[in-house]
């Protein structure tokens, strides 16, 4: 799904239309979504997957700005939030006045209100890109977030507003009482939004968004106003963020000021960047990984945010293409049929590296336990092993893992680099 890969298809077979091989990733993804609730049927698993899907739509919408349009926003949560709040009001009105509106179309309304807000704000914020845009988005985000506690009529103050999705008209007999029914509804919207967002990136405006991102001035001399291109991207992004808000309203049946806050805006930036802004499917990976970290890691350790922060900083420093970028780095090797060359060096480097990370984590956890747990409470459990946190052996094991892993990874790194080089060069070609 990289651009070059796309173009390859066009150049060799112009206007080739839809082929099975290009549809494959979509079909696999849809099948995957269909069987997930069968594999993981517990309500909490479904709740976590619902959260993932909401985050996926939101992250993809955000990447329409950051990755495709080159606009860094620090306040994008407001479009999702406002879309969600409007949906919540609609749910309440449906409940109060008995309006015949089936629940499944609700996210569309969220999208329309997100679009409406984006049209208003975008009319002045997209005039410039870069820092001006970023700062206006920060200011607007802060203002609307502040409104959430001031304008109680609409935002419901601190406790937010809640409603009951089951009061809407049943949709072909489905009342959306069960999480599983909600799951399939959200899955439908996730697939639909993802396809639409993908197609948007293939339209003239979507293509020009890339052009404006790379070189706004040149785009102007191709007949396109950079400002209007940004505006259209911004509105589209607001629309899909609003859809994510509608999905949120259906899933959680409550919206609070938290959804508008800068913390949410910052989180979506983190998620999108972690997944990879350069590729269409990057934010999907980011959303999945981050939701897992947030809900699962936080059950395991108190200092999970420290790990997430470190992971994020490391990603910016060493993998600016994000997780998707790391995956795509292997495409040339796969094309050359030389991926197998990498397997052994990978194992020899990554296993010690993982050990090193585990060692560091062990030391951090023990240190944290020693500093912050109740004195006398020396017993701690880590990786299903319970031990005494004041026992030097535990420290030693952590240190050995960390240093030994680091040393081994360091030793085998040149081999990996070498193998990498070989895997990415044509046979017989000059190095």
């Amino acid at each position: 799904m990289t651009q070059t890969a796309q173009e390859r298809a066009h150049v060799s077979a112009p206007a080739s239309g839809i082929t099975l091989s290009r549809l494959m990733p979509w079909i696999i993804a849809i099948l995957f979504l269909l069987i997930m609730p069968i594999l993981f049927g517990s309500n909490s698993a479904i709740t976590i997957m619902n959260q993932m899907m909401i985050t996926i739509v939101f992250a993809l919408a955000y990447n329409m700005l950051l990755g495709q349009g080159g606009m860094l926003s620090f306040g994008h949560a407001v479009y999702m939030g406002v879309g969600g709040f409007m949906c919540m009001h609609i749910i309440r009105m449906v409940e109060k006045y008995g309006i015949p509106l089936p629940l499944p179309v609700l996210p569309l309304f969220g999208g329309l209100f997100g679009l409406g807000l984006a049209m208003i704000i975008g009319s002045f914020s997209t005039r410039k890109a870069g820092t001006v845009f970023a700062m206006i988005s920060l200011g607007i985000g802060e203002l609307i977030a502040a409104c959430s506690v001031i304008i109680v009529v609409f935002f419901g103050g601190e406790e937010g507003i809640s409603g009951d999705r089951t009061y809407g008209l049943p949709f072909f007999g489905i009342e959306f009482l069960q999480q599983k029914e909600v799951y399939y509804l959200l899955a439908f919207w996730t697939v639909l939004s993802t396809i639409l967002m993908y197609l948007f990136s293939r339209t003239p405006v979507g293509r020009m968004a890339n052009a404006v991102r790379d070189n706004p001035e040149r785009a102007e001399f191709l007949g396109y106003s950079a400002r209007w291109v940004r505006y259209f991207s911004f509105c589209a992004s607001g629309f899909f963020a609003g859809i994510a808000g509608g999905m949120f309203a259906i899933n959680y049946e409550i919206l609070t000021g938290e959804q508008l806050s800068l913390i949410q805006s910052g989180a979506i930036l983190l998620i999108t960047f972690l997944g990879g802004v350069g590729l269409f499917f990057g934010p999907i990976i980011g959303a999945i990984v981050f939701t897992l970290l947030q809900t699962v890691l936080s059950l395991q350790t108190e200092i999970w945010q420290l790990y997430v922060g470190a992971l994020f900083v490391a990603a910016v420093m060493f993998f600016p293409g994000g997780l998707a970028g790391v995956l795509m780095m292997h495409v040339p090797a796969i094309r050359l049929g030389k991926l197998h060359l990498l397997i052994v060096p990978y194992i020899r480097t990554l296993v010690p590296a993982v050990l090193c990370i585990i060692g560091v984590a062990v030391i951090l956890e023990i240190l944290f336990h020693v500093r912050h747990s109740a004195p006398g409470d020396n017993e701690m459990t880590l990786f299903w092993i319970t031990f005494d946190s004041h026992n030097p052996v535990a420290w030693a094991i952590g240190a050995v893992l960390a240093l030994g892993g680091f040393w081994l990874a360091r030793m085998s790194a040149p081999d990996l680099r070498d193998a990498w080089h070989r895997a990415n060069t044509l046979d017989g070609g000059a190095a």
Partner: protein
Amino acid sequence: MSFKTKFGVAAALALSVSATAVCAEEMKIAFIDPLSGPFASTGSNGLHQFEFAADKLVNEKGGILGGTTFKVDGFDNKASPQESLIQLQVAIDQGYKVIVQGNSSGVAHALTDAIEKHNKRNPDSRVLFLNYAAVDPALTNDDCNFWHFRFDANADIKMDVLTDVIKDNQDIKKVYIIGQDYSFGKAVSAAANSMLKEKRPDIEVVGDELHPIGKVKDFTPYARKIVSSGADAVITGNWGADMLGLGKALVANGFSGPVYTYYAAGSGITAAFGEAGKGVIRLVAEGQLNPPPNDQVVEYYKAYKAKYPDGNIDQPRIYNTIGFLSAAIEKAGTADDVVSIGKAMEGMEWDSIFGTKLMMRAEDHQVIQNMHVLVHTNEGVTFDYDNSGFGTVTESTIDMAGMDSPTTCKMDRP
């Protein structure tokens, strides 16, 4: 090697958090409160008090109903309503029957709403919600439901207590009301205004305002305004950094009258006020520590301090919650049927070691108990907070506060 290896099978892949079979011998209580992020200290302190109370009151006595023990587990909601709902779902799936939560009325609203819906939609896995500290009056009024029980006095009852004390202090002629700009701050302001008007019509409210929550860097301008207004006393519902900032700014800028508060003790705040807040800061709370009402409290507190030397028992209501719940289970004769337990709690009375009788009002599930107004000081403090030498001493007591307070609650019972 002193490793006691114990391989847990669970949680290898969290997506497959399987619904562990509910053990008849164990009552699982899910504590959903912030355990990371800015409010984590309050949350983890509360969790410790819950675990300690469960051990002391139930488990060390061999359990209730002939062997049912309590198990309290923390679920980190990161102070977020959204995350709370996810954790609620996880807890229900894992067979937790009782949810306890206290920090933030916003989260409490989200939880009580979600629990009501869940119990209606899934009669097989119903849960109870024991709210130990979220004080928004709406939770036991318009937004009440059968599954929610509150073990803290609500904001109106607390204000009733504070104004009873102010009523008797003839030195107070002018009062300044300041709070955070959200539902709780507004509730405090509304209650203070109406109750002062009723109890002491001669008192002039010289200021009544709200400031943005968690956004004020420097409270000096507010303190200036309060000093200039000539107020004799300040009433505030502020908590956390906003409480500390306001209190310190008031003292630093020359205010010396009483500051009546809801949350100005423990979690580092007592230590940070130190000498500056002495005799100025007053707060309304349940449960008496200084002077200790009886030997049981002394023993309980000492045992707690032995386990958590850096901790405080700043929430006796947590002890009350666990004690009340265990008594209700005994009364209902079952630890599985939450409807029976809930019905047993309605109207039930129970004596707490903190020198008070607890009564769970049946019509709105609001606990009624003795309330105290405490003063921040270092004199006569048996049990200090934050190991600072400072603590809170009971100044006055209102018996069974809010016994006849009205409620608008209309509850559907299962």
